[in-house]
């Protein structure tokens, strides 16, 4: 199964399959790099976020929270909550990945992003190829880090990048990620409660309000789903 020529071929196939998504992530990567510089992080810290954390939304939010002076605990709690969808990806890929040797589990586990999941979750135990998955994950990791580096260089050489309204690109991106999810009443309730409470808490200058608002929205959506499920 993993004799060298086949392994290399599968790896290259995986790398080619993820190429469009690797390019589409360029604005995100540029943003992650330049935002880190804007928030007065050093280039090494900015690159370290992409190299060690490797989770776009969590990185951008953490940078925003560092800039806003949030405490360590609320940043870590937000990171945990914001990336909790990965628990579901892990659960879904458990039949395929949990039987692999430890180094493969750890390696592919580290590379398990939304994009990785989108490309590799369709295969069952017979079809799944670990080298293909490695090609997908590693290519995306390298692209993400290269675009971050480009963002760091741009952020250092172009002054007042923070005056350009780059913070709107977070809004533009998140809105584009949220809007397609709003397909049923519980999600509408979740988004509405989260939006209202986040603005209210922010208006009150409540430091950990962001996490609380998110949890309130999630709870409201969950409760609404329970009620509508009970009726159906």
């Amino acid at each position, binding site marked *: 199964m993993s004799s060298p020529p086949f392994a290399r071929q599968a790896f290259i196939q995986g790398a080619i399959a993820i190429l469009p998504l690797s390019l589409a992530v360029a604005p995100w990567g540029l943003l992650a790099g330049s935002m880190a510089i804007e928030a007065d992080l050093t280039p090494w810290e900015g690159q370290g976020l992409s190299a*060690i954390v490797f989770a776009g939304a969590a990185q951008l939010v953490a940078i925003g929270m560092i800039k806003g002076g949030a405490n360590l605990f609320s940043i870590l709690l937000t990171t945990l909550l914001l990336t909790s969808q990965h628990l*579901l990806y892990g659960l879904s890929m458990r039949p395929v990945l949990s039987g692999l040797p430890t180094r493969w589990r750890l390696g592919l586990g580290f590379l398990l992003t939304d994009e990785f999941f989108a490309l590799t979750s369709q295969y069952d135990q017979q079809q799944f190829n670990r080298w293909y998955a490695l090609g997908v994950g590693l290519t995306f990791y390298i692209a993400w880090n290269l675009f971050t580096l480009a963002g760091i260089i741009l952020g250092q050489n172009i002054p007042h990048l923070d005056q350009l309204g780059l913070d709107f690109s977070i809004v533009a991106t998140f809105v584009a990620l949220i809007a397609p999810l*709003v397909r049923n009443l519980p999600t509408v309730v979740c988004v509405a409660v989260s939006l209202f409470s986040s*603005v209210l808490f922010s208006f009150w200058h409540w430091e950990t309000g962001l996490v609380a608002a998110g949890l309130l*929205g999630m709870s409201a959506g969950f409760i609404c789903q329970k009620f509508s499920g009970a009726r159906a």
Partner: protein
Amino acid sequence: MIFALIIGMGLLVFLNRYAFLEPRLPLRLSSNARQFLGFAVPGMLTAICGPIIFLPGHQLDLSLANPYLLGSVVAVVLVLLTRSTLISMLVSMAFFFVFRWWLNGNP
């Protein structure tokens, strides 16, 4: 200090990714936990966007002449029409800059 935070974040993200890949873990998420976590993306991302849109520069702005609000509306319409995150993001940013220049009179 920042690097301690980065390593902490890295560990938490890896924990989320790896937890259910561990064969020795007998646990499964309950159906309720899974449903609750299903709201994590819209709930958390909305909570992050809200203050940026409605409190630009930490000042409450609920008017329709708020470029962040107008840009967000454009982003919602575009992503629902085109189904492309990338197109919606780039075009709504362009609209945002036009709105900002037009409403504030400075670039």
